[in-house]
């Protein structure tokens, strides 16, 4: 049994309703995964405050969650309301 350490970064563009939902959905998901023994670290970045980061990450659409670690990098766009889609998108397979 391998235990992953996930580092997820959520980019939002201002605290919009979609951004708020994305944060909630991602935190819920992290708690679930935590209960299953996965370590999930979440970082929220507002690109309006740090536009250069949006440039560096080549972000077009927000909210977007990027799996920074472990590689490979995975990205999921939207309010992250579809749990299964998010898990597939981020390639996280809870055991």
């Amino acid at each position, binding site marked *: 049994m391998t235990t992953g350490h996930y580092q997820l970064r959520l*980019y939002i*563009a*201002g605290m*919009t*309703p*979609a*951004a708020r*939902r994305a944060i909630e959905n991602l935190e819920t998901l992290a708690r679930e995964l935590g209960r299953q023994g996965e370590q999930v670290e979440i970082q929220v970045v507002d*690109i*309006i405050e740090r*536009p*250069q980061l*949006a*440039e560096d990450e*080549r*972000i*077009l*659409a*927000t*909210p*977007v969650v990027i799996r920074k670690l472990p590689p490979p990098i*995975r*990205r*999921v*766009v*939207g*309010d*992250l*309301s*579809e749990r299964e*889609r*998010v898990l*597939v*998108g981020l390639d996280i397979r809870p055991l």
Partner: protein
Amino acid sequence: MTTANPETAATGIQGLDFLLQGGLPRGRPTLLRGGPGTGKTVISLTFLCHGIRQGENGVLVTFDESPEALIRHAAGFGFAADRFIEEGRLRILDMRPDRNEVVGDYVELTAVMARIDHALQKTGAQRLVVDAMDVLEGAFSAEISLRGELARVFDWLRECRTSSLITIGEQEEFTTRYGLEDYVADCVIALKQDLDHRVMTRLLRVVKRRGGGHGTSEAPFLLDGDGIFMIPVTGSVLRARVSDEHFSTGIPGLDAMLGGQGPYRGSTLLFSGQAGTGKTSMAAAMTVNACEQGRKVLYISFEESVDELVRNQLSIGADLRRHTEGSEADRRLILQPVRAVELGLEEHLMRIMRSIRRHQPDLVVLDPISSLATRRTGDSAKDMLLRLIHLIKEAGITAVATELLTDDSQGVSHLDVSSMIDVWIKLRRHENNGEMNRLITVVKARGLPISSQVKEFRFTDQGLVIEDPYIGESGIAYGTVREARQSEDEQVIEQLHTELSRAMQRRHELDEINAAAERLARAERDTRALDIEREIAGIERRLANIQRARSAISRSRQ
């Protein structure tokens, strides 16, 4: 910063700026639409890089091509985009959608605006290009809120006060869906490709221009490794510079036929004639002479290859090759072969004009100009030739065109461009007793006292020689016939001279006789007059005697 018009941002593409009366609307968005390969990216890059050169920094947003490809592209047209980036004058924002990204609901496009805004502020850019914006829709097509988000981006672009150029593919739905043409853009330019007679022509049309007139007709343009070139076709006006200077043809006899000093500089000469009448030789002789005078000549050969032309002309004493040597800047003669069939008429026109602009020649030779027209029917060929001649004239450049007349043409020109020709010279063959002679006539020469006589010309070691024909008792004669006719006539002359002196003698004798008769008659008249005078005098004397006697008698009676 050198901006001629504060209302416009010049694209740096001459013809387009002319069409747009200065350039794109300053501080406003312009929409550039066209299918793949119509030249959207090249126009955008030129607009942006030209601006940077003029001191207006730029931001380029790409949704389709990689920044590396765009930098290479720009470098191909002579713009050092990589250096502009290093100097902080240009920023390229890579907005190519990540195809591996998983897309869910409620996508927002604020990031697009935030990134553009950030780049505009960092560079202090006044120009913005958003290339292939429609790709964005495809990337998030499943998303329900996308339309609203895209509309928000367009609204933002409309308000962001940069001179921006948004390019999209030829998608009617896309432009109407977001009100791009009606609401967002102040100026709309459409590009397309037209296939006619299997020849492709690129066309540009200014569909809309808020607050300014625009040409609605389609303007053809050239797009290749040298970038974009277009001619303000609808805008051309007659403003050819008139010159009093003469441009010697270098053919003494021809200059003499044209009033002594040759045609005016900046005029257009046309040599018309059937095959083998010496049209190309005339053009080559003028070319060599101009080169020897230190002038620059652009010789466009539509039928002969450069090698053929050089060899054929050398055989009759015109050394073209000598003037083609050296670097492009030093060379006096630029020989440019053009295969008439390969390209469309418009493309020919533009290529010729581009060469003229590049080489800045004093003389342009189009040999033969008729090859552009022969394979096509209708007015388009004539129209194109008229425009070509007009444009050359407008540039104040002397031009020599040759026209091949078909054997059944009976010497009538089919080009119908004579209204644009200043000096029209016809060359003819004269066949007699198995010999061919070449004849030359000046049909017209604007503003020059011309010789209306048909003259003969020959190729000699010293080049072309124009001679007066022999005009004898049985008409004009040329060549060896001329010589034969001449000796034949000499005998006649001798005979006539003898006859003439005889007749003169007879006339002299007659004069003598007449004079003698006259003297005799006068003597007779004098004698008779004298007799009558004597008679009168006698009668008067007798009357007087009688009168005297009567008065003596009457006195004695008193």
